[in-house]
């Protein structure tokens, strides 16, 4: 099962490595991890995308809660939430492909944020599956470079993760 875990953690040196170390030491997998300070700079918010059975997820959340720097942990995917991922993708844009790339970016509601004679950089935001579809829709030979942020997510409505 796919799970998105959100963590509020003290914004201190080494906090990230405590979390990453826990995952590797106990054999849990991390598919993506994003981290940045929140509006309160003393706290960081981390979003981890992982896969595991219910038992494994129970252990992951319990073990995360045990870390002294961790303030709160929630499994976002347990209830209604929204998730987004950002991708920057550099593509070859010459000849007839140049117009085609522009059209594809428009269809996926992407934005071209850098233009040269032969390349575009397209910015695309959405659910991870949308980013996957975009990559699949392009001619693989035209993709020069991709970079993705990994998933970040937030609960819907009154579901709030705060100290």
């Amino acid at each position: 099962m796919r799970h998105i875990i959100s963590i509020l953690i003290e914004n201190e040196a080494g906090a990230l490595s405590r979390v990453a170390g826990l995952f590797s030491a106990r054999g849990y997998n991390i598919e993506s991890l994003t981290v940045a300070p929140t509006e309160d700079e003393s706290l960081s918010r981390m979003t981890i995308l992982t896969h595991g059975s219910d038992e494994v997820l129970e252990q992951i959340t319990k073990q995360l809660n045990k870390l002294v720097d961790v303030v709160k942990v929630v499994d976002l995917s347990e209830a209604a939430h929204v998730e987004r991922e950002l991708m920057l993708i550099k593509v070859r844009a010459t000849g007839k492909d140049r117009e085609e790339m522009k059209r594809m970016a428009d269809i996926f509601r992407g934005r071209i944020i850098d233009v040269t004679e032969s390349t575009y950089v397209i910015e695309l935001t959405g659910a991870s599956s949308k980013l996957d579809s975009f990559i699949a829709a392009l001619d693989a030979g035209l993709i020069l470079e991709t970079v993705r942020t990994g998933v970040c997510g937030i609960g819907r409505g009154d579901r709030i993760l705060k100290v």
Partner: protein
Amino acid sequence: MISGAEIVIRCLQEEKVDCVFGYPGGSVLHIYDALFKQDEVKHILVRHEQAAVHAADAYSRSSQRVGVALVTSGPGVTNTVTGIATAYMDSIPMVVLCGQVPTQYIGQDAFQECDTVGITRPCVKHNFLVKDVKDLAITIKKAFHIAATGRPGPVVVDIPKDITAQMCEFDYPKTIQMRSYNPVVKGHLGQIKKAVQILQEAKRPIIYAGGGVILSDAAEKLTQLARKLNFPVTNTLMGLGGYPATDRQFVGMLGMHGTFEANNAMHYADVILAIGARFDDRVIGNPEHFSQEKRRVIHIDIDPSSISKRVKVDVPIVGNVADVLDELLKLLDAGCKTDPEVADWWAQIEEWRGRESLRYRQSEHIMPQFVVEKLYEVTGGDAFITSDVGQHQMFAAQYYKFDKPRRWINSGGLGTMGVGLPYGMGVLMANPGAQVACVTGEGSIQMCIQEMSTCKQYGLPIKIINLNNGMLGMVRQWQEMFYSKRYSQSYVTSLPDFVKLAEAYGHVGMRIERPEDVEPALRKAFTEHKDDLVFMDFIIDPAANVFPMVAAGKGLTEMILAEEL
């Protein structure tokens, strides 16, 4: 304004630390200088940093106070890692203060630099690198707080040398609040009520109690509870002494080398009350085999991650064992019936007990079990017993009947050879004048044997009970049973003459080779040589094995008994 080094010492004084175990070096010279200028905190100079941490660990295990070690940067720190991991696995509260190279040199591959926080991270409850002298006192306060509360554990504080030289006001907070760290104490009352209900319905109950009972100082409460319910009690290796071993309701240790009655009672119980124990692989054997029997499990533990980790739990109660037992006792006092069918269960247990699974064969040589039995008699069952890891550890656990908590000091989780002698040092520093015996083997004792020198310096009269079979006994036992007697590297040749070695360190050495000499030699060691360290080299039957035994991967009831061989 005082220096960072003086702040460190003042913090230790505020924490009522009467003794630290350590070894000086470049990065901690300021701290050692501050230590020199006072006499409240005593320092025990070990011969290897590993021993400093083991001793601090045993100081804690035997006293309920937080043990403290002090080491220098680089190799000083790396030498402590085994000791820290040992304490971590057994949830022992401990603070390890480490020197670090000056702040501006960190990351420059400076002399005696290592990434202390990185190296120790996986085996500490928490660790800190102090980057500002203003944070020093509060960090040490946090370290003691974190080490001793919740599920206890070791905490490392890494202190760069320049921080110990800088000047700062000293203000030690009385209490501490951390928004990210608030361990639960009280158990959930609804869950406790559910537990009481299930306990009263039990027909084949067992109380399975581990090291959490000892850490929480709840031995007396456990005894009250067991007596009130008339339930059988088994202890894990870490829990020994948490329930009086000479009591009728005690069915012995369970697990890989547990008694026939304990393992059967655990397996066939319809209700298990697990208290401060974690169903680990050495305790329940193969989890699939274990889960074949239908039963209800109540689990009291302060660490939620220990609950339902290996065995599905029906009634989890997260809380401090002593507090939860208080609540349980209160509810039971309000109205407790003893189910008549528990009598049938006791009859069954007595039948299992009748197998006398700890009986061992007689031999013309000294049997190791016999040595431990005599040790028990000679010390009146009241000594602190430290052990190393291997066959001798199991013999000590099986044959020394611990009636009191904190008397059995061993490395259960990590299984660290070499702890026994430094453990003895820690016990004696926390309990001056106590009888302390270190049950060990000729393999383990050589892993920290240099500490005989420390014992001489501080007059620590440990009795080393060396069960010498010239082999790494537990390895040899597995090779005999599971590797067709291919004894790969399990013989120890070129052993030193331990008697002469002990004498060379200024101690008393004895070699005991005949069964009839065992008891007189022990008596002599504990009376005539009461104030001496005595190295007792018992030449034992080399073929002696530990039974019963649940082979790795087997079910708890699939025991190999001595009588079957």
